[in-house]
């Protein structure tokens, strides 16, 4: 032990968090754009935007549907910027085959609309980012005012080896994402191989709908009453090429069932209101895994070909969520963690057992996330494994 070792150990747990990285990337790309786009080109973009708006107004006057106009529409600078950030930030994963996402190029050539969907909460836009490397990455946007919020979708590359129907489910949020309960819709979407000429979406209780295919992509909103669905892909002669079953749990389905039928329930508890709540590990259809939290029999699936697969470490990686008056801490307390201490700002604390390092804990009545000062993980011998101080503004509403 010498002075250098002591100095190196000082504050060594400090790390660069994802939010700082995302914010900095956003700032840098904005800076690059400001420095790189000459003034005359900026003016040309503004003129193009005005022309596009005029075209949309004219089309509306003649009764055309906006959906037709959206296809191929260049993305706004704000959307482009967000997409660039997202795609650069999420490790540039391009789906190449089962369980084999690989890094891909993310420098964009074009960003344009693929299709829109009408939902009870508003329009959902499916954007396509066509990269210089020949990949196309998708992202969904809920039509909200102000800054666009994008949910990453599949990335398909020139070398992608996929089944005839490659599908995934994604939640698309509407509203202010700083709010704990952002309303969202679930979208089932995917990509088809060239041989697939049509794809039908069928509900188990009957009813079928032929889905529109644009640039190999399809998308449909999942009804709130979840059930089993089937996607059937056919070639031009009507021969069936692929049949994919999609299982989704719903509020009316009673006991918790694994979303997508491939999930493992890690922890299951009953909330104070008697609702079953679960922490599940999804095996994603396009490879990797995602940790999700289900409440009231429903929930979201955060599988995304772009998102890095969930991996366990010794560190605390928990989420905060809930509904109504219930607030839950859920997620990974660290693979070596046996107990997690929740330290409140009033210097009181509670110790929560974390089976196999997983945590699913409902805060007592009267406690809110913003009251938490720090999470401290201990192993089975009572030794401190790690800690996570929580900034007050993380939970600011």
């Amino acid at each position, binding site marked *: 032990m010498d002075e250098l070792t002591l100095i190196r150990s000082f504050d060594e747990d*400090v790390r660069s968090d994802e939010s700082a990285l995302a914010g*900095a990337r956003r700032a840098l790309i904005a800076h*690059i754009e400001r420095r*790189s786009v000459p003034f005359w080109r900026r003016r040309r973009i503004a003129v193009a935007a005005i022309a596009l708006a005029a075209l949309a107004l004219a089309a509306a006057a003649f009764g055309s549907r906006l959906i037709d106009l959206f296809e191929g529409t260049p993305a706004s600078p704000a959307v482009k910027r967000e997409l660039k950030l997202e795609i*650069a930030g999420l490790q540039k994963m391009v789906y190449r085959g089962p369980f084999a996402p690989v890094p891909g190029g993310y420098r964009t050539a074009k960003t344009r609309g693929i299709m829109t969907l009408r939902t009870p909460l508003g329009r959902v836009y499916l954007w396509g980012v066509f990269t210089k490397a020949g990949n196309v990455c998708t992202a969904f946007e809920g039509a909200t005012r102000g800054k666009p919020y994008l949910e990453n979708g599949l990335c398909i590359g020139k070398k992608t080896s996929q089944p005839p129907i490659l599908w995934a489910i994604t939640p698309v949020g509407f509203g202010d994402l700083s709010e704990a309960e952002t309303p969202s819709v679930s979208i089932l979407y995917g990509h088809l191989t060239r041989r697939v000429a049509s794809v039908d979406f069928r509900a188990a209780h009957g009813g079928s709908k032929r889905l529109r295919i644009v640039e190999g992509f399809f998308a449909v909103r999942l009804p709130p009453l979840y059930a089993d669905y089937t996607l059937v892909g056919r070639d031009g002669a009507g021969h069936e090429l692929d049949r994919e079953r999609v299982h989704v749990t719903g509020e009316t389905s009673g006991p918790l069932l694994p979303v997508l039928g491939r999930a493992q329930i890690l922890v299951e508890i009953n909330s104070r209101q008697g609702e079953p709540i679960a922490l599940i590990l999804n095996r994603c259809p396009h490879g990797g895994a995602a940790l999700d939290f289900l409440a009231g029999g429903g929930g979201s699936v955060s599988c995304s070909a772009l998102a890095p697969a969930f991996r366990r470490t010794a560190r605390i990686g928990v989420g905060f969520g809930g509904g109504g008056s219930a607030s839950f801490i859920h997620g990974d307390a660290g693979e070596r963690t046996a107990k997690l201490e929740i330290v409140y700002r009033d210097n009181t604390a509670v110790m929560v057992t974390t089976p196999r390092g997983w945590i699913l804990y409902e805060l007592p009545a009267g406690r809110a996330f913003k009251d938490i000062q720090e999470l401290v993980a201990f192993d089975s011998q009572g030794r401190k494994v790690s800690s996570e101080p929580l*900034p007050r503004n993380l939970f600011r509403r």
Partner: protein
Amino acid sequence: MADDRSDGEAIAGSQRDPEAFVTVFERHFGAVHRYLRRRLGAEVADELANETFAAAFDARRRYDGSADARPWLYGIASNLLRRHLRTEERRLWAYTRAAGSSANAEPPSGDALVAEAIAALSPEDRETLLLYAWADLSYEEIAQALELPVGTVRSRLNRARTRTRELLAPQIERTVLDG
């Protein structure tokens, strides 16, 4: 494909294609940000790390083409950091005070002693020592970052280590005894 260009190549490429600079950012932002965060705390570090990469982008034409951009980036960060020396000192003394105000009779924690030792150094010596200890730069890389002769780096580092060794002697002894 993963970008296997060196930093120098990526920076040269960013002259034609400015977005290529993002590669340099992706490689080094985490380390530079972590270094600044250890020195200044999260709030200032976020701002300063952003400024570092924006300044680096603006100055990329003057980059010397070295394969590893870390010394250059830490050099920019160090220049920007000089505006915040008082913040750093306040932060270090806050550690010391927190330990000193403890009501129990226990000796100050290791972190408090280290903070005190770092705070006691001159800004130049502190900068050299922390680039070595926290940013993992070699003598030559520190010299490049701070635009100093290697000999100056060597003497600053020697002075800083001697001073901190004296100040941390009780902690070193305690650690050895606790074994």
